């Protein structure tokens, strides 16, 4: 009887600790398609305002594509470059320009980083100090690409 009681006590300890573990999974915010659509719309408006033809790519925190829009008359090569910039910003959690700057200032080894497109124009979207995704823009000058990406990223509050 006593052993049964202690078994029950043991079970309830295990149960409690199990519940504790379940509650202790940290959560993260994720980018929805709706949010990505808002980002792209803001970026497209900015590109149109500047008369720029660009590709706008939005990826999630894993660097995987959620949305891409290639504006009419944009060079097709910008599709891969745009995705690459967004992916770089997302998985390295910083603007892709940082790598372009590193290489320009002599750190050629940064070219060897796996999965990186070290070209200006990718901007991470940070919410509560967490990167939830990124936007990459390609098709125009590096500075304009980045400016447009920033406008897109800023569309989310």
């Amino acid at each position, binding site marked *: 009887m006593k052993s049964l009681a202690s078994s029950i006590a043991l079970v309830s300890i295990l149960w409690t600790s199990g519940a504790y573990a379940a509650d202790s999974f940290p959560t993260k915010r994720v980018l929805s398609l709706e949010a990505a659509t808002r980002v792209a719309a803001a970026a497209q408006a900015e590109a149109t305002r500047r008369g720029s033809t660009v590709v706008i790519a939005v990826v999630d925190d894993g660097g*995987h594509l959620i*949305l*891409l*829009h290639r504006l009419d008359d944009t060079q097709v090569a910008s599709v891969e470059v745009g995705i690459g910039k967004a992916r770089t910003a997302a998985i390295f959690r910083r603007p892709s320009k940082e790598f372009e700057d590193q290489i320009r200032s002599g750190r050629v080894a940064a070219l060897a980083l796996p999965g990186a497109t070290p070209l200006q124009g990718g901007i991470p979207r940070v919410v509560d100090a967490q990167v939830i995704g990124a936007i990459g823009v390609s098709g125009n000058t590096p500075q304009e690409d980045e400016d447009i990406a920033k406008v897109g990223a800023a569309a989310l509050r």
Partner: protein
Amino acid sequence: MTSMLFMLTSAVMSASPLGAQYAEHKTLTLDGAKRAIAAAVAEAKRSGGTGVIAVVDDGGNLMAVERLDDTFAAGANISIGKARTAALFKKPSKAFEDIIGKGRTAMVALADFTPLQGGVPIVVDGQIIGAIGVSGAASAQRDEEVAIAGAHAVETSPVGASAPRVEYFPSERVRDSFAKGAVLFDGGGTNYPVHTSRRESAGQAEVHLRDTDVIYMLDGATTFVTGGSVVGGKTIAPDEIRGAAIDGGDTRRLAKGDVMIVPNGTPHWFKDVDGPVLYYVVKVR
């Protein structure tokens, strides 16, 4: 002289057909691609609501992609691959899945090739202007159905080719149209056809799976039944069901000046008509 004339002629001949050296080909715009995706998303939401939809141009280059919430991440690349395959091989990607399935395994060696059901070409005026690929819907079959719905939206209303026009119908034409009951505006590829309808006696029970009817009663009176279930319903055309009567539902008396909105999928029936009943319908699709 002869030789000069010959030279002149050949110069003219080689110059004038210059234009003929270039064929005209329609192209898809980003607006068109977005429209295809919107239609595909609507179709995907009929089953599960997940999927990635990619639209490529006739060179197989990506124009637009959208991944619905909760769709597996790898689906983006698969959908692009299916669309590319359909565009560059000018066939639904299922054709190649079938060929390989029947034993031609060697075909998987082709480079840049996604032989999986779910990619279909977008064809306007007999020309392939691009393709749409879908991955991550409820099944491979649904992937293809969602893609077809997207392609259809562009094919029936080629955005890259022409924008909707302003339409004008003078009163005599509208009157003539009501005199016999007719389609005033067939929609011309838009989503808002207009009917000038006339009814002398009771109609059949109707269900439009696609069109929502916005009805404005201009003359006469009728008993109008909505909802309930159609008795002996048969599909007489795509998205159109007709039956002998409606069981249950709500019954109203409609007369001149009344407006009714009947959402798509809702059975409705002009039951007892004090004719002629004239009514104006905008069909929203």
